[in-house]
């Protein structure tokens, strides 16, 4: 007989397991190329959090929390910190707050590194943190 509450479907959880890495890679890909082609922190963050939300639905919130390993709120805090430091680097290196600083290093895949890129990564983490905090809180309530 069907057991409740984990009315989970094996097919769905297997599919999610398979898809998680693809989605995460795709979201990071969107994030890093954001500067030169459609993408960026917001979209990347949303896609990544959708992946985790899917995991939360297919299996359960606790599984999703374990896979994420870090408390979503802490992710958000970390994101804000990264974003702020990106702004401060501009200030510290003589320019004004949030002035873009381009050290001129050019990585093969990602392209030129710079503080706006760092800021974008900060945005990515904040968006992921934000969405997952909301989704997980709602889900915990429900389960």
């Amino acid at each position, binding site marked *: *007989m*069907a057991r409740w509450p984990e009315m989970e*479907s094996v*097919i*769905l959880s297997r*599919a999610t397991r*398979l*898809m998680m890495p*693809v989605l995460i890679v*795709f979201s990071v890909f969107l994030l890093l190329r954001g500067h030169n082609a459609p993408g960026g922190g917001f979209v990347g963050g949303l896609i990544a959090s959708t992946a985790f939300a899917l995991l939360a639905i297919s299996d359960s919130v606790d599984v999703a929390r374990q896979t994420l390993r870090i408390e979503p709120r802490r992710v958000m805090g970390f994101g804000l910190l990264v974003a702020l430091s990106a702004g401060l680097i501009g200030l510290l290196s003589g320019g004004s707050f949030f002035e873009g600083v381009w050290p001129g290093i050019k990585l093969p895949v990602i392209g030129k590194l710079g503080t706006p890129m760092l800021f974008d990564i900060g945005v990515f983490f904040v968006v992921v943190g934000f969405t997952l905090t909301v989704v997980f809180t709602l889900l915990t309530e429900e389960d």
Partner: protein
Amino acid sequence: MAWSEVLTVVLLVPGAALMLIGAIGAIRLQDTYLRMSATSKAATLGVVLMLAAGAVHFGDMGTSTRAVATMLFMLLTAPVAAHMIGRAAYLAGEPLWVGTRTDDLKGMYEED
């Protein structure tokens, strides 16, 4: 028409046709399960074909890999989605079409 254009057309038009058939199926078929089988199978195959046409048409490395990724994604998720809807509909007590002969699931999800 260049060789690649022919291939694109060969992939694109049947894709669109299949999707139209899927839509017609969704309209004419009698109950949820039949409609679902039509849409998930026909439409998904149609999309895959059109994505392939896209991949062929844009030869460059980046786009075609992404198109292939989307195709794989569709091939993976469509059946899972169809399965989930079907089960949910059955649980929700959707009536089967009067003409269905066998219902394998009868009795499997009894109220406990």
